[in-house]
């Protein structure tokens, strides 16, 4: 691996290591005619160097807004930064400092999006768009960059690397476009890559290929990764740590193996039951009900209305309660269990 920076680093992050990215009590709301939408409430998130974190939730759970807040990519207005801190490599990010943000965007924190083809401008060839970004970040001539570009594209399983540079976004498949966008993100050499639903709009074979690539990247380059998905199976394959979001809040977080083996929050349990079930023997499991309206959240636990275990204390919002090493869930059941001993 000469193109992709330093030698492979053990993927497992040491406990207590200084975080690469740290969000503390992040709160973001959107103005809307129906009232203020509480998109992200009091979210604290740590990503250690070389760590891979999966964020899981339904549409509207706040996972995308959380990611976009990191480099403040939200349209503002209507998005409003209500409170909290974001630190990247120990540096406090000020959302209204465009110059600082531009330094972080791409170079510190790379992003890839759900529909990679739409993330390229339809009017320019892919090569020109790669060249533009590299020129902005490195100020070296394209000719000098080209070998590294081709090598990185091939690393991302693009056999006809020269040919792809000549294509327009609409002339390649969604899977190829996603791999080109991953290659472009890598070319800027970020410390952290945020992948927002990178496989959602792809066909099954392309999904497998893109996931395989992200897995390989993780193993071979030690790039820190935040993988956002509504699909638990995608996250399970790559993430070391998993964060479950519901109605703008983190409801459970912990090591991936623990979350999948022993989920503590009823919402996580429901998600797992609906995602990992086998079809033999009866009906598919589905979570009853629908997520609450973020513009008019009821007081107390947001999941209360859909929860089979709801009891009296659920009318107040539970804190994130410890449920083991590095594992926590936002549920009163944990407190009850602790009290019951």
């Amino acid at each position: 691996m000469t193109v992709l920076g330093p030698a492979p680093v053990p993927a497992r992050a040491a406990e207590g290591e200084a975080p690469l990215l740290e969000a503390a009590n992040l709160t973001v709301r959107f103005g809307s005619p129906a009232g203020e939408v509480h998109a992200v409430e009091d979210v604290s998130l740590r990503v250690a160097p070389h760590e891979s974190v999966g964020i899981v939730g339904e549409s509207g759970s706040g996972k995308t807004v959380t990611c976009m807040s990191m480099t403040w990519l939200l349209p503002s207005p209507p998005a409003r930064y209500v409170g909290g801190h974001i630190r990247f490599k120990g540096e406090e990010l000020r959302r209204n400092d465009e110059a600082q943000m531009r330094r972080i965007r791409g170079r510190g924190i790379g992003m890839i999006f759900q529909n990679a083809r739409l993330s390229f401008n339809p009017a320019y060839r892919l090569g020109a768009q790669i060249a533009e970004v590299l020129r902005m970040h490195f100020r070296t001539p394209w000719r000098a960059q080209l070998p590294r570009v081709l090598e990185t594209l091939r690393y991302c399983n693009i056999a006809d690397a020269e040919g792809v540079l000549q294509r327009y976004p609409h002339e390649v498949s969604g899977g190829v476009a996603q791999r080109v966008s991953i290659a472009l993100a890598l070319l800027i050499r970020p410390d952290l890559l945020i992948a927002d639903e990178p496989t959602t709009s792809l066909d099954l074979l392309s999904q497998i290929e893109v996931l395989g690539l992200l897995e390989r990247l993780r193993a071979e380059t030690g790039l820190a990764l935040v993988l956002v998905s509504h699909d638990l199976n995608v996250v399970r394959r790559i993430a070391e740590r998993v964060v479950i979001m519901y109605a703008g809040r983190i409801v459970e977080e912990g090591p991936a193996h623990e979350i999948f083996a022993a989920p503590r929050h009823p919402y996580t349990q429901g998600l797992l039951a609906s995602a990992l079930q086998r079809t033999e023997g009866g009906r598919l499991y589905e979570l009853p009900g629908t997520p609450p309206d973020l513009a008019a959240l009821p007081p107390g636990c947001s999941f209360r209305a859909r929860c089979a275990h709801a009891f009296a204390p659920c009318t107040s919002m539970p804190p994130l309660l410890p449920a083991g090493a590095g594992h926590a869930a936002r549920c009163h059941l944990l407190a009850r269990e602790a009290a019951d001993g």
Partner: protein
Amino acid sequence: MLLYAGQRLAAIVPTLIGVSIVTFGLLHLVPGGPAVAMLGMAASDPKAVAAVTRELGLDRPLPTQYWLWLRRALGGDFGMSTEFHVPVSSLLFPKLEHTLILTAGSLVYAIVIGTILGITTALYHRSLFDRLAMLFTLIGASAPVFWIGLLLSYLFAIKLRLLPALGMTSVLGPPTVLSVLEHLILPAFANAIIALAVIARIVRSAMLEALVQPYVLAARARGLPRWRQVVVHAFRNVLPDAINITGLQVGFLFGGALFVEVVFGWPGLGYLIYSSIQARDYVTMQAAVLIVSGVFVIVNLAADLARLALDPREARR
């Protein structure tokens, strides 16, 4: 792309034939027929009518007349002006040039100011500036060209005495490029306002749409500066729309010149049509209308092809 261009080129042939038939027919729709119309007061003399009828070949069958007229027109011969007694073509082509200068001047205003206004209002969407600019374009697009021309002329030429009110060159001293440009400022602006307003509105709405496209967000996420997001990424995708609407405006600017030329005494095709109508010089008027229509069709074709060439998705079809 080439195939499509060929199809478009072929499609303008029937359009031009239709235009020529209508233009030719105009002369014969005049009450009393062309000879009477041309003679005006003198039409009470049947001998004069007969002479003119013979001279212009009006006694022949209409298809024959049309064919003769068209064949000569294609060769650049539009007949003799009944008013000025010179070949119409010798009147027409210098005037066409003057009108094209006025059209080009208006086009520069419309494109430059319209585009800048469209982009800035999109960037400052819903601000006070945006609202005022949109109000201005609404008024500008609704007001008749000659009225705006008269207002501008009154304010800048007569009250403030900053710019000349009439003509194309200064009567004092030899005609220079600079004096033409000086004379161009007011009429070109008056003529440009509607097109400027239309371009500004189209660019604004297309920019508003383009600015929220995923590729602009992605460009931002990749660390590109704001101006590149706006100009290189968003505006590039507005260009086909902008060129399309600009192409249509060229035709209207060309037509608007007719009024503006009269208000500002600009010696162009519009002024020629105006004076030939007043003088009942139907031969000249007919030729001028034919030229205007032909230029209109060709300009729209050119704009369409330019739009195709700029949009790779369309170009590959």
